[in-house]
């Protein structure tokens, strides 16, 4: 089990993000939406870590909690700085400034992620000013270079967002995230809102930029074919929990969790030869306010046992074909661990 040779960039430990539900005149906290409920994982330097799950499974909340865009309830996000590991969630303002230049995010909706009141230059120069680039000519030069990196002409700078197509806007969003030269970028459904032919352009661009700038990505999406294409390793989330985590090929070839299995079978594949038998998922995702007892997936699981209804499964890391394969299921542990 001691295979810690890989360079860990971020370790997330026991991260919980709860949204309070307030009720009544005095806005008393009546309960919590457990959007992210105790997740732990490592992000290795230079990898593309895919995060998949249905809408509402907490994947976006998890990404934004890591960046402290949404306050986390508890847990640690340990970032490996040159001078050692530090917990992002406990940083003071000055330290956080440094972290903000290391970690950036690309948003889902290209139409709301650019301010319609400003030109591209106006939008893109803000982070540069924030991090001390006082000279306007210098900023112009930097922005021109960033736009070139995402294959957009320099004269885009003086135009407003409404003059661009969705794909172009998304590239501007990528350029903005890269303006502070980060090492870690979260792509939150970065291609989901784009047309299919444009998705490929942006996916290729993201891959190129990763090589060119030595980036590490966390790629959040609900689209399994996209995540298979782009990721080195995949996290599958359900109801705020990580149910399975493995390298891409391993996950697809040796699926251990019944949820991942169902998810894979439910996705329509763009290949007419692959019309196949599905495992329909029973019912709907339960409410994260009152998560089910035991395994969070048990009410919909075709293989549910008595044990699943009462006992919460512990994550177990198995070694299969030399790959670390984490799974959170009683059945997988009993059948595959010998």
């Amino acid at each position, binding site marked *: 089990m001691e295979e810690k040779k890989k360079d860990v960039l971020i370790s997330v430990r026991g991260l919980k993000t709860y949204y309070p539900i307030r009720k009544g005149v005095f806005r008393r906290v009546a309960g919590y939406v457990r959007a992210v409920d105790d997740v732990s994982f490592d992000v290795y330097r230079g990898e593309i870590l895919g995060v998949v799950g249905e809408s509402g499974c907490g994947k976006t909340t998890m990404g934004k909690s890591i960046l402290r865009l949404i306050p986390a309830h508890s847990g640690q996000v340990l970032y490996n700085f040159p001078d050692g590991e530090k917990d992002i969630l406990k940083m003071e303002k000055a330290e956080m400034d440094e972290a903000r230049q290391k970690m950036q995010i690309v948003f889902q909706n290209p139409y709301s992620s650019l301010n319609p009141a400003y030109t591209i230059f106006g939008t893109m120069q803000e982070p540069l000013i924030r991090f001390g680039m006082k000279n306007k000519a210098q900023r112009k030069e930097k922005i021109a270079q960033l736009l070139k990196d995402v294959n957009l002409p320099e004269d885009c700078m003086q135009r407003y967002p409404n003059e661009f197509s969705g794909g172009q806007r998304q590239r501007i969003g990528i350029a903005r995230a890269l303006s502070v030269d980060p090492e870690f970028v979260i792509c939150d459904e970065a291609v989901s809102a784009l047309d299919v*032919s444009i*998705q*490929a352009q942006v*996916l*290729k661009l993201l891959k190129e930029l990763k090589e060119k700038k030595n980036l590490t990505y966390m790629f959040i999406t609900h689209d399994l074919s996209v995540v298979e294409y782009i990721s080195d390793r995949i996290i599958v989330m359900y109801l705020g929990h990580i149910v399975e985590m493995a390298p891409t090929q391993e996950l*697809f070839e040796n699926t251990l969790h019944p949820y991942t299995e169902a998810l894979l079978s439910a996705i*329509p594949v*763009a290949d007419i030869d*692959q019309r196949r038998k599905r495992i329909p998922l029973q019912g*709907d995702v339960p409410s994260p306010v009152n998560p089910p007892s035991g395994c969070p997936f048990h009410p919909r699981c075709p293989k549910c046992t008595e044990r699943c209804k009462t006992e919460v499964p512990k994550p177990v890391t198995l070694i299969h074909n030399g790959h670390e394969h984490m799974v959170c299921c009683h059945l997988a542990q009993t059948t595959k661990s010998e």
Partner: protein
Amino acid sequence: MDNNTIISVRDLHVNFYNNDRCNRVIRGVNFDLKKGKILCVVGESGCGKSVTANAIMGLLPDLSRIEQGEIHFYDNDQDIRIDQLPRKGREMRKIRGEGIAMIFQDPMTSLNPVFTVGYQINEALLCHHQAKNKKEATGKSIELLKQMGIPLPEKRVGEYPHQFSGGMSQRAMIAMAMSCHPKVLMLELKNQEGTAILLITHDMGVVAELADEIAVMYMGNIIESGEARAVMKNPSHPYTKALLDSIPVLGRGKDQDLQPIRGSTPDPYNRPKGCQFAPRCDYCTECCTQQMPEEQIVEPGHMCRCFHNLFKQGGDA
């Protein structure tokens, strides 16, 4: 015209007149929708696929109109010309619902949040005389929700849309659309029984999974259409081929080679003169920049509008 055809669209042209400009959104579209078949209209945003559906439903916005062409709706051997009916008239209202039902893209905003789901389905049933009284309507509503696979329909029928998840709202919408046994169901996403379905999507996965026939649209024209297998296995238009090469396919692994289509869709107010796809096409030649190619039959039931017919005898398979 065989009698399985429910909707027939002939040489449809639709213009939009927003911002003091004229946008020729639909530029001569032909297709037939047959009983019990699923026709998928595929295309990128702005290609005119939703406008086509709205034209059939008589739901075009005020500043737009059908310039030429015909939309026939065959209802019990009656030939109804939808393009000539007043958009907000009584006949059109009767067709919407009883003849053709449409389900909108966003299930969360298509249901009225102040009424229970059951009440809204009852309304549709009562309004189109599918139920005599409220009690009968409620019974039918429960039955419809059950058919759609919604658990505990007796309880769900009294709940409000916000208590439904996205997927359930979508199914409730389908239940509502199916409540009056329409002849055609137009979906902007998912799918259903015996009726003809016009499925509008940009998700090739859904298309591969469900379609009997496919129509690929680009900038206001159907550039390729035919039986699903024929179109997907043997794409004859460069755009269809490029589209299929540009999407990742589940199961093909990490090293699959994606070929993005270069450039982006042209400005609708400043369209290319000839073939709309010419500026992005690898096969573009002189004649492509001059005129839009006519419809060609490349094999029985497989149409393509391209000068450089990529059709291969026998196909890839």
